[in-house]
């Protein structure tokens, strides 16, 4: 699997390269600034890109902008965005095109190599990987409001895990229920959020987006 890495700090870049290589990824390019990334992503078209939000020269959100730009050029290009902090605003922008293949994680998540690589693979396969912090921020503020779209607490829980990018099997394991029960919950969620029938992956992304947009 070919990966492009964009990270300006040498130590982190090096660490990411070694980690991903250890798990059998092929590093197509390792980039340390925004403009180069903007040029490289559409031309290399990697299987997945791991991108830091903040990159030189302006150290603002160049990485994110480059990722969004690349996804406009190459729809659905899988991008996993890493950051020192997570913002719902950015999560929403990443998911806005509804085509999946998007991840948004805190840099700390790299510590847990297995989980991190799992997230990279999920994004490469067109799924999502939202940082649990994004979800918990959402929950913190929504706790006072109406439950989203009339979801039951259980359905909400499923949606949360879905937002993190977990598969039905993983959700079932986490909630200690059968996979069939989870499948039933997810189809209820899709129905309640009024998502048109389409392939399951895409609907999952849309459900997460609805979750994020709820405000």
């Amino acid at each position, binding site marked *: 699997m070919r990966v492009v890495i964009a990270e300006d700090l040498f130590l982190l870049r090096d660490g990411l390269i070694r980690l991903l290589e250890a798990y059998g990824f092929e590093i197509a390019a390792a980039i340390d600034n925004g403009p180069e990334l903007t040029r490289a992503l559409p031309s290399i078209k990697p299987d997945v890109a791991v991108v830091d*939000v*903040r990159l030189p020269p302006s*150290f*603002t*959100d160049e990485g994110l902008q480059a990722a969004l730009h690349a996804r406009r050029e190459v729809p659905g290009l899988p991008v996993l965005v890493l*950051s*020192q*902090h997570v*913002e*719902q*605003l950015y999560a929403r922008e990443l998911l806005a095109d509804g085509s999946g293949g998007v991840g948004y994680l805190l840099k*700390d998540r790299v*510590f847990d190599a297995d989980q991190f690589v799992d997230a990279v693979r999920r994004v490469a396969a067109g799924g999502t990987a939202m940082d649990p912090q994004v979800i918990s*921020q959402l929950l*913190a*503020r929504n*706790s*006072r*409001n109406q439950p989203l779209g009339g979801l039951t607490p259980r359905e909400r829980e499923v949606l949360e895990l879905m937002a993190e990018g977990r598969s039905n099997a993983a959700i079932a394991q986490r909630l200690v229920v059968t996979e069939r029960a989870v499948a039933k919950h997810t189809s209820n969620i899709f129905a309640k959020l009024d998502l048109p029938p389409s392939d399951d992956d895409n609907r999952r992304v849309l459900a997460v987006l609805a979750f994020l947009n709820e*405000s």
Partner: protein
Amino acid sequence: MKIGAAMLAAVRGLALALLAMLGSLVLFVFFVVSFVLSIPGLGIFLVPVVTAAVRGYANLRRRLAYEWFGVEIKSPYKPRPRFRRGPIGVVQRYRWIVSDPATWRDVLWLIVDATAGFALGIFAFALPMYGPYGWVLWAGVWKPIFHAGGGDWYTFVHVTNQDTANKAAVLGVVYFALGLLLARQVMRASSVLARGLLAPTRERELELRVAHLTESRSDALDTQAAELRRIERDLHDGAQARLVAMGMSLGAVEHLMERDPEKAKRLLAEARESSSKALTELRDLVRGIHPPVLAERGLGDAVRALAMASPLHTEVTAELPGRLEAPVESAAYFAVSEVLTNAAKHSGAQRVWIDMRHEADRLRIVITDDGRGGADLSGGTGLRGIERRLGTFDGVLALNSPVGGPTMVTMELPCVLSSP
């Protein structure tokens, strides 16, 4: 519309003339008497009281000049120092008042207002009103006047028959039109005249400015020092302590690696836990110092991110074509954040609207909520603190919060936009 405005100006002219006759004259006499009574010593108590009344009255005139005729007059008084208790304080207060040139300019204004101000007000009212009097004569009232004894002079027209009454009516129309045309200008001129004495002199303006700058600078330094202390404490108790714990765990791991691999593993997991907690704490700290979204996206998106995190339903409109200066941006961000927190905590509001725009080198932020209102600057809600912090940038905060709501907080900061 225009006629209405002119009529209003004329009536306001009459009101000011009456006020000048009653208020200005009486206060002038009071002041002179109380000051003369300083010689037997009574004035030491009387002058401050009368001056307070004079200042209240002058401030009313300042406000009316702005609200009625659009002439802005700033307050010129020396800031009130802290007085000691007892007789020394009384003398201090007396000296504070008597040594302030603004007191004497006020007194001078009282006499000017009682004469010139009165005359202008009466003129603004009487000129348009004299017109209808001509029409009244023309309508037939000239007859009884004529029969009673020789006829009335309407300015230079001696009204003795219908023919001259017609002339008076025509002249009345001229007066009426002229009066309406001039009423606003005359009253504006009267206000400008008042401004000559009521506004701070150039010197006083600079003095006030220096006083303001001194105060806001010391506020800024205090805030900054407190902020640094908080950061120091947070780092000391948080991340730093965690790193120490991590180092100790790792040292122990090194030791236990061979003897007790199970325990070493557990300690490693603990160390990792510590590191991720330290990161979380650092992240929160950074958010408090300078939120990353603000650095990355500027004020508009940073406030949008705030709105998303707020438990209230918050709508944000931002018209900011470009980035603001960094310190202003940060001050504005924390001010909005504080107001939002206040709204969530105290107002009982469901919805909040934030409107930010940049016009004529000023950033203007209006935050409105649909809560119960009744907020008060002095109510310890932190609004005073925001006001002070904005003051460092010559910014101002206005609060409008009638009981029953809604509450509207308006902030304005002078600043320049840079291109994005």
